[in-house]
């Protein structure tokens, strides 16, 4: 009997919820700490959902720290929630639609795919929930702003550095990342634009793709070096547009004993790449600023929600790191943000 009564109560409450659509606003204040709570912002506090592509990579931890910093500065609550599995597109779609259904004040999203996330973002717009997109772009114009590294500019940074190192003359190779990846294509474009501006520099190969993993990039890099007869000095400069291609190319250079014989500029940083930078096997790394990305994305959303006008495109900046400026405080802050301070880990 007890069981049945409980069942009845629950069933009625579910039906009630369905029929009423939304419970009446309660005056009870919601808990206000970030990272928890899940109510509609009925008490006037702004609550922003921040949805990264994943949660375990160092990059996203820095973004998280930046987002926390912004939330404290501009006094809003954030909920940090990535897809259940790293890089799981379907899971991200589900997380976005759940937040839309829940009715948060705003959503800050790093879309895993530039078309697949369009529908849930559109849904958010229809529900009057603004969306700020960060890290990677999204097709359509349902989002308020796009906060990310200007990849063309970042690629240009690398191109200029290679030119400088080669004194504007020599043969240059690009090992691309993957077809259909917008951010790396822009980096490659920025690099090629900068190099082609110098008549003394010649691009001898820019149609090879390293693929998604370090292994594939390593294999491709090795055969590329052979094909271009790099051992004869026919290649003077190399650019790779992301972490996996950079590391793969580094391994290829070391294996064929051609490191230090040519100027090599890569993208993104990891402990291994920074080590190679210190040893002189890599001559420069262009790094993004994930901390700033998280910070600006949340700040932009808060500004928008408070009625301020925000730009459609916000650059979070990239920075060239070399052996010489590795110890600069500004570089250090980008390379090793104080996660502990913001995430309490």
């Amino acid at each position, binding site marked *: 009997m007890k*069981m049945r009564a*409980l*069942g009845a109560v*629950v*069933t009625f*409450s*579910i039906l*009630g*919820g*369905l*029929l*009423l*659509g*939304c*419970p009446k*606003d*309660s005056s*009870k204040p*919601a*808990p206000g700490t970030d*990272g*928890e*709570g*899940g*109510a*509609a912002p*009925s008490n006037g506090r702004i609550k922003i959902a921040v949805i990264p592509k994943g*949660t375990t990579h160092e990059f996203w931890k820095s973004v998280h720290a930046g987002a926390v910093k912004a939330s404290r500065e501009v006094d809003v609550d954030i*909920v*940090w*929630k*990535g897809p*259940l*599995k790293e*890089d*799981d*597109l*379907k899971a991200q*779609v*589900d*997380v976005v*639609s*759940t*937040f*839309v*259904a*829940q*009715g948060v004040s705003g959503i800050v999203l790093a879309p895993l*795919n530039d*078309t*697949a996330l*369009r*529908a849930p973002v559109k*849904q958010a717009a229809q*529900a009057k929930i603004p969306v700020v997109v960060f890290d990677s772009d999204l097709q359509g114009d349902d989002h308020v702003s796009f906060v990310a590294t200007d990849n063309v500019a970042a690629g240009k940074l690398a191109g200029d550095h290679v030119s400088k190192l080669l004194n504007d003359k020599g043969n240059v190779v690009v090992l691309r990342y*993957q*077809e*259909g990846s917008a951010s790396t294509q822009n980096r490659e474009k920025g690099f090629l634009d900068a190099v082609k501006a110098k008549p003394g520099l010649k691009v001898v190969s820019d149609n090879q793709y390293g*693929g*998604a993993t370090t292994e594939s990039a390593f294999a491709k890099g090795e055969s590329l070096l052979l094909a271009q007869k790099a051992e004869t000095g026919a290649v003077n400069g190399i650019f790779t547009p992301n972490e996996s291609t950079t590391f793969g190319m580094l391994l290829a250079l070391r294996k064929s004993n051609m490191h230090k014989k040519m100027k090599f500029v890569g993208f993104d940083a990891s402990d291994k790449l920074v080590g190679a930078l210190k040893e002189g096997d890599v001559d420069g790394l262009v790094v993004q600023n994930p901390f700033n990305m998280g910070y600006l994305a949340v700040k932009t959303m808060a500004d928008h929600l408070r009625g301020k006008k925000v730009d459609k495109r916000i650059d979070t900046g990239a920075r060239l790191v070399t052996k010489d400026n590795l110890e600069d405080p500004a570089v250090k802050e980008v390379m090793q943000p104080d996660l502990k301070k913001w995430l309490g880990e």
Partner: protein
Amino acid sequence: MSALASLRTMRRPAWLGPFVALLVVYTIFAIITPEHSFLRSQIFLTMARQSVVLAICALGMTLVIVTGGIDLSTGSLVALTTVVVAKMLKGGSSPVVAVATAVAVATAVGAFVGVCVGRFRLMPFVVTLGTMAVLRGSAIGLASEQKIDCDPRGLDHLLEASLSAPGIWIALALAALVAIVLGYTRFGRHVFAVGSNEAAARLCGIDAGRVKILVYAISSLLAGIAGVMEFSTLTVGDPTDSVGLELDVIAAVVIGGAPLAGGEGSVLGSVFGALLIIVIRTGAVHMGMPSWVQYIVTGVIIFVAVAVDSARRRRTRS
């Protein structure tokens, strides 16, 4: 009193346990989410939408598990279906042709698995472990190692968080259909018989191999339909989609009261199991729980479901 007594001698419906678990978990979330936002109708519809793929796959898996088998290729098959649909649409096919082709491919795969299991008596675990890898590879190869972008041509409206979206109704209709097939047809009876005691089924003139072929074909057909729903959500063909989906599907069926040994299971139970998993997932997002908590909660619920079930079995036996 006599009514109560007759209730007691009746078989307790297999879906009652998962239903109660669903209500309990739902109620807990409804109470602890601030403002009780868990009761909003939009949340309902969103959960319904999110359950569709899992639930449709669970329908097929229920059949497979009732025969005492298992299908590990579900996730890969869903991913392959999204790729086939996207590729066909991109190549200019009409949505109807694209969907029909993708579902036909899925069904053919299931028939192949069924022949291996039913006719050649290979272990379903091993056969589908192999199929899982082959299908995943095929999907990635077919998509040239990237997501296939295409104009969804209305397929994106198949599944939305709205009562007017056909996807949710299709899922409900399929659930009803499979429940009828399992409960009220000769074929359904033979599915239970093969899972319960295959030797006895053969003795009674039932072609157990044929039953298994049909079961795996139907299961894969349903996975194909689920793949179309998945495409509707993604709007792209994603060869890396749904990695590990089969484990969620198996969990849903097991929570739904079907032991992996076969012979038992109910469609309604599996659907409740799928809903339970989605409620936990949604609730975790609501509470801002990190992913690891979600994993642990789901795992604990599987343990509890199986423990309660086996305790009940022991009680009725003695």
